[in-house]
């Protein structure tokens, strides 16, 4: 049946009159006001954020890169110092500790020979001191305390002993024959 214009007007006017119940609108209003606000709108310092939460966020990449750089630097530094300290292994012949120990042992042995022979050679004595001074600088690295103390004792004793005990003895015999 065709709607008459009058009937349509009447329907539309009735639709305009639809409103919520006063009670319903009051309840809804209270609910809306009481609802908790969204977290992202609040300042960050009032909330504690754990590392785990941070990693789960976009900061993960920065930490990844940072730790990679740190480890790489550590490896470079370690290998740098390691090769400096490990050079005894890489260059066994040029081991300063061993060369110094050999030099000191040879020096003492040579002093004993020179003393027994009674050679008054001042130039060889000077070079003795040069070698001792040079090897003295390396002594800080020597761990072998036995070599150190024995060689030191020998050097001191040899320096204080008379080079030609034979000549001394002969001059004393001369005193006795007068």
């Amino acid at each position: 049946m065709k709607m008459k214009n009058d009937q349509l007007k009447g329907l539309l006017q009735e639709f305009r009159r639809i409103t919520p119940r006063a009670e319903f609108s009051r309840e809804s209003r209270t609910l809306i006001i009481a609802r908790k606000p969204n977290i992202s709108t609040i300042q960050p310092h009032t909330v504690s954020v754990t590392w785990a939460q941070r990693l789960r966020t976009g900061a993960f990449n920065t930490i990844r890169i940072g730790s990679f750089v740190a480890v790489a630097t550590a490896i470079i530094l370690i290998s740098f110092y390691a090769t400096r300290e490990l050079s005894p292994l890489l260059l066994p012949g040029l081991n300063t500790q061993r060369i110094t120990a050999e030099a000191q042992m040879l020096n003492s042995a040579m002093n004993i020979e020179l003393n027994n022979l009674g050679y008054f050679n001042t130039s060889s004595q000077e070079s003795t001191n040069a070698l001792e001074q040079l090897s003295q600088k390396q002594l800080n690295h020597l761990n072998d305390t036995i070599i150190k103390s024995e060689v030191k004792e020998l050097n001191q004793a040899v320096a204080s002993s008379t080079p030609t005990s034979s000549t001394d003895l002969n001059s004393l015999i001369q005193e006795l024959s007068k």
Partner: protein
Amino acid sequence: MNYLLHYKKIWLLVPVFIYMSIALTMPQAHAQQTTVTSQLTHIKDQVQQLFELQDSTTIPEQQKELQEFRLRQQILTNIITAAKQQVADARSRLQDATLPQDNNETWKNIRDTILAGFDRANEYYGYAYDRVNHDSSVTTALLKNVARDIEQEKTTVIDPLIKQAHTIVAALTVQNMLQIGDDRLEKIRLDVQKIYEQKLTKSKALQNLFDTASSTLGQAHRADQNAQEIILHSYTPQPNASDTQYIDDLYTNTASSTASTTPQDTTQESRLSFIEKLLQKNITDAITGIKSVYDTFLEMSSNVKNYLK
């Protein structure tokens, strides 16, 4: 094949044995030196006492004579003991020395002759000791005569023997030291080779240092070999024609090059002192050479980091 490798490894131990033989005999040699040295100090003190006694005016004459006599007896006894110790030290060093394989018979001959000389020296000192102590007719005058006699025998016969013994031991010990230097040079050679093969350095400094050390060590070897040759030709108790010729050649060669070391006259005594001076020069040259080589080694090893740039 495995056996060969094993054999090779044993040879690597040879330098270790040489090193140890030098290092282990050192304290013993040092102890010998201090025994005589401490005896000498004591004797010097006693001689000082004797002088003070002779100069003293407070002691009566007769007492003075007696005290002087007793003191002289003591001093002379101590002198004989010290002189015997000198012989004993030289003897043990010579006996312990390992003689070279080359010309081994000549070396043995030389050594045995000197040892026989030491036996006679001990007999002499024993006789002198008895004269000083057990003879009932000992007087101050007798003590003075004994002292004069000891001085004569010691300076003309016994001391030259002792000098010969120490010279032989020095020349042979220096040879062992040179061996240690050779081994260290070889190890360093491998390091230097490694450095240059891997192009770890552009500068020639390290190579130059190595070459210097190598040539100095070679010179030291030659000096020690010279000393040993001179010993063989001049210490031998029965020199033959070639020995005499060798000494004459040495004399003329050195006379033409250095006028200062060769005496103008050709007496036996001056010839002997010429030989001794030549031996002294060669042995000290070898020793100085070794010291210089190790100076270079130390410089190379402490500066190697700088060269690796």
